């Protein structure tokens, strides 16, 4: 299929439709409104639902309803709105329901700003709401990945019966790049015998629920869920390695930070510094193994983030503090420049960190 130029936000929306998602619920917030606008235009024409909910809280609970019925469903928002959704996300996780939540991050905390950020990393990768749980977290670094990872998120979410989050940022949402759209699917590849579609008097009633008043039962549930999470970690960890074979310094970055870092790595190579990049595509599960392996042969790592340093903790855990890890960051809506990243690479290479 021919490539088309599309905004990242629109690519998410179109890919979701092509993945068989016919239900979208959201609440307006910058910088992701193109997703809602796209859905508002398209859904009525294809027999789907676009509903602007009264709040993000309602939107995520409408998602909970559609997912209970066994259908693909999504919501999207930006940082402050995603905080409001956390209650519902915890319930989705606790009820083992699949769903896609898109977070086109902006600077925080509080109302923060509207410029790009990656400061919801902790919230996304460590659960976010109350209780023991994880989301599958995917971090696109191009408009093509905005589309591809949307489809992937639906597939993984259905397969493992857990919510997935697409963690993007304002630049990814607003930028246009050529994209080859995914093929159409009805989104019904995974059987959902647990769905509450009416018993038709043919089976026992299904119950979608996260309440277990007997602690022994809740403990069993949580252990079971974490067994499933282990499978996800084993099978679904995704990352890109760029010029890491001979690298002395490895940059770890995702999303827009990875794009900036590639420029810096090119510049470093031109200066004779062997730099490379590990770009996590899944933030949970985190590519710990790749980082641990690299730790044996590099001088150190540079974590490039649009936050005060959140992913850096996972890098240190992954490499067991064998090698130094420095932080190269901007925050509040600012983006590190390639020059800033280059300097961090040079400093790490020269042992100045």
């Amino acid at each position: 299929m021919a490539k088309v130029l599309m905004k990242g936000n629109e690519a998410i929306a179109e890919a979701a439709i092509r993945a068989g998602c016919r239900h979208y619920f959201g609440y307006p917030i910058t910088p992701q409104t193109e997703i809602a606008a796209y859905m508002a235009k398209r859904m009525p024409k294809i027999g789907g639902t676009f509903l602007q909910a009264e709040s993000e809280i309602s939107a995520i609970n409408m998602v909970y309803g559609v997912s209970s019925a066994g259908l693909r469903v999504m919501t999207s928002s930006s940082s402050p709105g995603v905080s409001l959704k956390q209650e519902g996300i915890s319930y989705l996780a606790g009820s083992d329901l699949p769903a896609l939540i898109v977070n086109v991050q902006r600077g925080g905390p509080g109302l923060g700003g509207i410029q790009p950020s990656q400061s919801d990393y902790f919230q996304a990768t460590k659960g976010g709401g109350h209780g023991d749980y994880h989301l599958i977290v995917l971090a696109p670094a191009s408009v093509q990945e905005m589309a591809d990872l949307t489809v992937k998120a639906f597939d993984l979410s259905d397969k493992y019966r857990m919510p997935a989050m697409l963690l993007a940022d304002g630049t990814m949402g607003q930028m246009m790049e050529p994209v080859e759209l995914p093929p159409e699917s009805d989104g019904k590849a995974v059987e959902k015998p647990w769905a509450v579609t009416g018993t038709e008097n043919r089976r026992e009633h299904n119950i979608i629920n996260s309440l277990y008043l007997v602690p022994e039962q809740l403990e069993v549930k949580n252990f079971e869920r974490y067994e499933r999470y282990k499978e996800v970690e084993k099978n679904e960890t995704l990352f890109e390695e760029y010029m890491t074979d001979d690298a002395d310094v490895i940059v770890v970055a995702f999303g827009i930070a990875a794009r900036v870092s590639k420029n810096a790595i090119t510049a470093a190579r031109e200066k004779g510094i062997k730099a490379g990049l590990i770009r996590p595509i899944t933030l949970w599960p985190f590519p710990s193994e790749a980082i641990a392996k690299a730790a044996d042969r590099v001088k150190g790592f540079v974590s490039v983030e649009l936050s005060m340093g959140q992913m850096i903790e996972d890098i240190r855990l992954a490499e067991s503090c064998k090698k130094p890890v420095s932080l190269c960051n901007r925050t509040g809506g600012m983006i590190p420049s390639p020059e800033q990243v280059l300097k961090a690479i040079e400093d790490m290479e020269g042992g100045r960190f």
Partner: protein
Amino acid sequence: MYTQILIAGFGGQGVLFAGKVLAYKGLEEEKQISWLPSYGPEMRGGTANCSVIISDTPVGSPIVSEPDILIVMNLPSLDKYESAVKSGGSVFIDSTLIERRVERTDISAHYIPATKMARDLGIPTLANMIMTGKVIRETEVIGMDGLRDALAKTVSAKHQDLIDANLRAIEAGFNYSE
């Protein structure tokens, strides 16, 4: 080639649109492309800018901080970005709206009275396309052939009747000699 373009002006001058035309034409020419707007409240009447990269190799960061080509349509944008232009790069200035000259000597400067030309041609909203025409002439970042197809994709479905006017503006800019 790896050409980084920054287009800046007031909101409403068609800065984002000019970037889109370059991006769509680049795509038609099977180049690697990125287009990134500034977004938010500053788009409403304040300054707007957009980064466009047209390249033979994969695009790294979509943010243009050191443009090869700078197109400016108001004075604040020239003041802000003149120093950022790569040495040996080019600046295109709407001289109807910007009276001062470029101070740097290591970049080439082109002065086009685009806003006045657009007014004289009876297409007052298309100064952006006149600037684009001149950029094509001087830099050959994209070709003129097949521009109509690229415009057809850039212009929304309900404004397809404006393609001719856009083409006229681009040609006027292309043929303008300083």
